[in-house]
């Protein structure tokens, strides 16, 4: 239980850091650590497939995409964030934690327990035979992400010489 609480606290802290840190590389790495912790929590809750996806896609692939994108940008003008935005996130986070604590605890007691049991079949079976459509959609999400990087970090000057 103690390990679970430490992992959950770590998840919240690193998720918050991912938003609050100014240095984008550090923010991307914080997100990767948060995702890794979430993956471990999934493993401990006997959901290995969710854990594998979380660690491979979010901690691995998406972090690579983020760092690639950051590498493509260069230090430019100083961007000052509005004060309201700086305040909004911590306020929202605290509010969310309070609501989560109050509502979800009482709500979860009312949710009938899922007939428990280990996830059926091997990882391969689940991936290829039960959730195949998700793979197609994941390919779509990754493709959209890569294309978005290509579109948003294109050199504007190149547009003109067509």
């Amino acid at each position: 239980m103690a390990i679970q609480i430490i992992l959950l606290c770590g998840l919240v802290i690193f998720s918050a850091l991912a938003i609050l840190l100014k240095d984008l590389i550090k923010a991307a790495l914080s997100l990767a650590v948060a995702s890794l912790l979430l993956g471990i929590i999934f493993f401990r809750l006997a959901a290995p497939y969710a854990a594998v996806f979380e660690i491979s896609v979010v901690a691995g692939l998406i972090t690579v995409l983020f760092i690639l994108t950051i590498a493509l940008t260069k230090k430019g003008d100083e961007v000052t964030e509005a004060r309201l935005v700086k305040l909004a996130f911590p306020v929202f986070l605290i509010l969310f934690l309070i609501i989560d604590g109050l509502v979800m605890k009482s709500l979860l007691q009312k949710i009938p327990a899922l007939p428990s049991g280990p996830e059926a079949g091997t990882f391969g079976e689940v991936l290829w035979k039960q959730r195949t459509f998700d793979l197609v959609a994941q390919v779509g999400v990754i493709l959209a992400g890569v294309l978005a990087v290509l579109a948003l970090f294109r050199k504007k000057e190149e547009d003109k010489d067509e």
Partner: protein
Amino acid sequence: MVFSFIVIPLLVAAFLPLVGKFSKKLLPDVLTNAALAFLVFNSILLVKPIFNQGVIVQNLNWLGERVNLQVALDGFNLFMLFTISLVSLCISLFSIDYLEHYGHKSTFYALFLVMIAGMNGLVLVPDLFSVYLFLEVAAVASYALVAFGLGYDELEASFKYLMLSVVASAFALLSITVIFGMTGSLNFQAVAQGLQDLQARLVLGVCVAFFIMGFGLKAALVPFHAWLPDAHPSAPAPISAMLSGLLIKVSGIYALFRIIYSVIGLTPALSQLLMALGTISMVVAALLALGQKDIKRMLAYSSISQVGYIVLGLALGTPLGIAGALFHLFNHAVAKGLLFLNSGSIQHITGTRNLEELGGLGKMVPVTAGTNLVGALSIAGVPPLAGFWSKLIIIMALIQAKEFGYALVAILASILTLWYYLLIQRKAFFGRVAEKWSQVREAPFWMSAANVVLALVCILVGIFFTPIFKTWISPAAEALARGIQQVLMWGL
């Protein structure tokens, strides 16, 4: 083949950046338009089998072994697929000339096709988690497309859109997670059966509230609409047309009502809540549209208002209400697509979208002015155009269900709609030609052609209303109504 609606756009999108290395304009134009024309053709070919069989279930085989890729096509999804394919084809035709000054056509088209694949996937999958995943495919592509111009406004609007859209997705995902926790399943039918066995009304109520918040944000229903009037006008015109014409309907209305009709069931309380939300959207957004000076911003508010009509009809839940709402969904997709493309033409011609600066353009650019008039009158519900019939059916359905108050508000909102569309006509196209517009010329060929095709659809659908309603709308409405009956039979 049904899978082609997802696979073809994704495959073409994957190859386009490579194709763009060899041919910057011609091949991306041809490939994208050919792929979309094929999808339109494919959806027309599927009408007959759906009309005869009702539902087509297809499984994918890979090297002789059955892969668990199953899609179930009924009248409702086919109707949505046809709407998406037809409007997308016109938008991509318009983009041939419009994108000349943006450059990087191959990347634009690739993102555009990924967005279409996401929407088609969302329409075809019978599984809650897959709905969420395809929702994200379409959403990720749309964030990049809104920001495609890379100007300050575009980037700001895209960021705002991203932030609110992520909140919407989070609500939908939270609800899906709780439902999975309760029923141990994600398939629509199995979840509906599981929920009926459980009788967990309180938790289900919370899930429905989260779905309404999530998909309501995606559909920009009032009071979840704040992002839309910024995001839609800032995007390039083809993407504004795509977002307002299709995306808010597919990722908001389709997803919400598919889940309500096929999984949760439309209870009288839920019906009243959604009807109230629809009516508030219809009136508030119409009033907000009246005060706008930017054409695209006015059109964006109009989209929120028209989405209100669709929600009102679908939430009513009677066969006539559903049919009217679906018909209005199609008509709005076509006419709003046309009006946003048209606003792109106006901006291309004059360099401005400000109604106060425009005036008398009708004499100088008759094709743009004429097609704008057709689109505006169709949305406002003027006979014999397509929008008139769909609004009439929704109002008739309301009267038939003895919801006289809602019917009256729907008629009044329609008058407001006509008012602000006539304002556009008066300020932009009628009156004396201002000195600075005396030399303007009509928009390039493909831009005008796309406008004309969409305007013709508005006119022809209005004239041939009866056969089109029987062939397309009735099977779609029946498929949805069957979903309600099944869930009602399960006793929810």
